[in-house]
């Protein structure tokens, strides 16, 4: 405990190291995920259950309703529906992961370790970027599991290597955007329970878009919402990449949405993190 060396070491010691601190915080969050695996299991389990429900329970009928000669009969319909619904389930996997992000941020805030970080000379944003990077990695893991299960239950993508790489990159971008939004939602929540409920719309939005049924089968008002909400172009881009279909301008619209959500989520999160506690 060398006494007051402060004035001498001040200039060098006062530099911030956001990258190094973010890497430290990322390691912390990955360790926490490994120590608390039930969370990851729950986050992967939910989309898998939805996938099985939609393919085996509803798939025969819904697939027949998709139209087209190949979809006649319950078995044919189920196979077609597995291909149709897979992108929505993939997006739901991302939404479930970011729900986990909101929960772990809220847990952190109640536990007091964040208060410690606030009194330390560290790059503040690293507390948040650690969560964001950790969640992106967790999402990639969950996506691998969910896509694996989808392949087992009849999902037959026609994408080549290039399209798969583009899919991976696109999913990273989507996850990144939604995680930043979720980091803000986790902070704005007063309790862990609220934090787990606030991102719920993200899980429901694929239903109110082209995720589970084509939008032209919906009533007029809902159809308008479904066509213009951000998840529809995201799902259409995934569908196009995986099933080798024309994407049109959906990819650009999706990426612009991602950029807007990411930037908005980042600025909101940063502002929330820098506000003072009210007591």
């Amino acid at each position, binding site marked *: *405990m*060398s*006494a*007051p060396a*402060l*004035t001498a070491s*001040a200039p060098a*010691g*006062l530099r911030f*190291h956001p990258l*190094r*601190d973010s890497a*430290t915080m990322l*390691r*912390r969050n990955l*360790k*926490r995920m490994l*120590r*608390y695996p039930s969370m990851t299991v729950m986050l992967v389990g939910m989309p898998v259950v939805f996938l099985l429900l939609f393919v085996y329970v509803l798939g025969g009928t819904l697939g027949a309703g998709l139209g087209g000669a190949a979809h006649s009969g319950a078995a044919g319909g189920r196979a077609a529906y597995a291909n149709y619904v897979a992108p929505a389930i993939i997006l739901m996997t991302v939404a479930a992961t970011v729900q986990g992000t909101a929960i772990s941020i809220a847990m952190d805030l109640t*536990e*007091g*370790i964040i*208060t*410690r*970080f*606030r*009194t*330390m*000379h*560290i790059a503040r944003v690293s507390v948040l970027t650690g969560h964001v990077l950790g969640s992106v990695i967790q999402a990639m893991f969950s996506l691998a599991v969910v896509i694996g299960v989808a392949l087992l239950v009849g999902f037959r993508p026609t994408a080549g290597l290039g399209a798969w790489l583009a899919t991976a990159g696109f999913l990273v971008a989507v996850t990144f955007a939604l995680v930043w939004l979720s980091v803000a939602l986790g902070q704005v929540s007063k309790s862990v329970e609220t934090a787990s409920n606030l991102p719920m719309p993200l899980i429901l939005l694929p239903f109110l878009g082209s995720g589970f049924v084509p939008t032209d089968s919906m009533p007029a008002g809902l159809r308008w919402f479904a066509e213009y909400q951000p998840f529809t172009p995201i799902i259409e881009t995934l569908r196009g990449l995986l099933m080798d279909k024309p994407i049109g301008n959906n990819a650009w619209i999706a990426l612009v949405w991602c950029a807007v959500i990411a930037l908005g989520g980042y600025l909101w999160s940063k502002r929330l993190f820098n506000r*003072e*506690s*009210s*007591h």
Partner: protein
Amino acid sequence: MTITQSRPAIAATGLRKSFGDHVVLDGLDLNVPRGKVFSLLGANGAGKTTTVKILSTLISADAGDVQVAGHDLAREPDSVRAAIGVTGQFSAVDNLLTGEENLLLMADLHHLARGEGRRRAAQLLEQFDLTEAARKPASTYSGGMRRRLDLAMTLVGSPQVIFLDEPTTGLDPRSRRNMWQIVRDLVAGGVTIFLTTQYLEEADELADRIAVLDHGRVVAEGTAEELKRRIPGGHVRLRFANPQGLDAAMRVLGQASRENDALALRVPSDGSLRSLKTLIGRLDDRAIEVDELSVHTPDLDDVFLALTGNPTHEEVTTR
């Protein structure tokens, strides 16, 4: 070095903070010399935690000038953060990580080299008697262990000024004594400790200087001895077998305060043998039977209650 040495570790003038209509700090002045234990003593809600939060950069003051470790709190909060360590009232450890991982996390955030971080962590685990539990998750720790880990984490960065906000609240007597020893060792190493407590015994035991906080102001400041001298708290308590004895003694002793329910009298006294002899002699002369006699020297309780005017202890304060 000589310049920084002579400067106080913490200097605050006219510190004010309100939450809405509720005034928490009402013009607080503090002067904490370097390398000492300074204790802020106050009841619950007196503003202790708010003071620590302001001094440790967590919240900003509405008004007032503060220098911590030679840096202006408002203008250079980052320099202040680099010089301080905080162990708050509520544990700030990561429950899912082990004790060792918690310390290594702090080492990484202080940008210690890998080997240096490991050495520091091992040394702190040893010093705080946590080596055996080092590989267990912090969630399995007892209250005392958690508090020690919390403080060990604060020390990884070798802070010059350490804030301890009620460090022993909720600890058993043994853990409390452990914590006191740790604080003494830290001060011996040249660190300044800013300690808040609601335990007078703790302030008496540890603090070089004590400030009594009441309704957001410092109502008295000094060493424990100085504070005790300010309050004539010494008395002799006499208990009687019956009300007649009490009445008789009251007539003889005059300036005593009586506790009718307990059949007892409190007689002001400096506790010296001579004054006791005189007192006993006067009672003996009238053949008044005394069941029990006890001598009370003034302690910080008397000081505290007198200064903060707690109405439920009116008897103590108005004597």
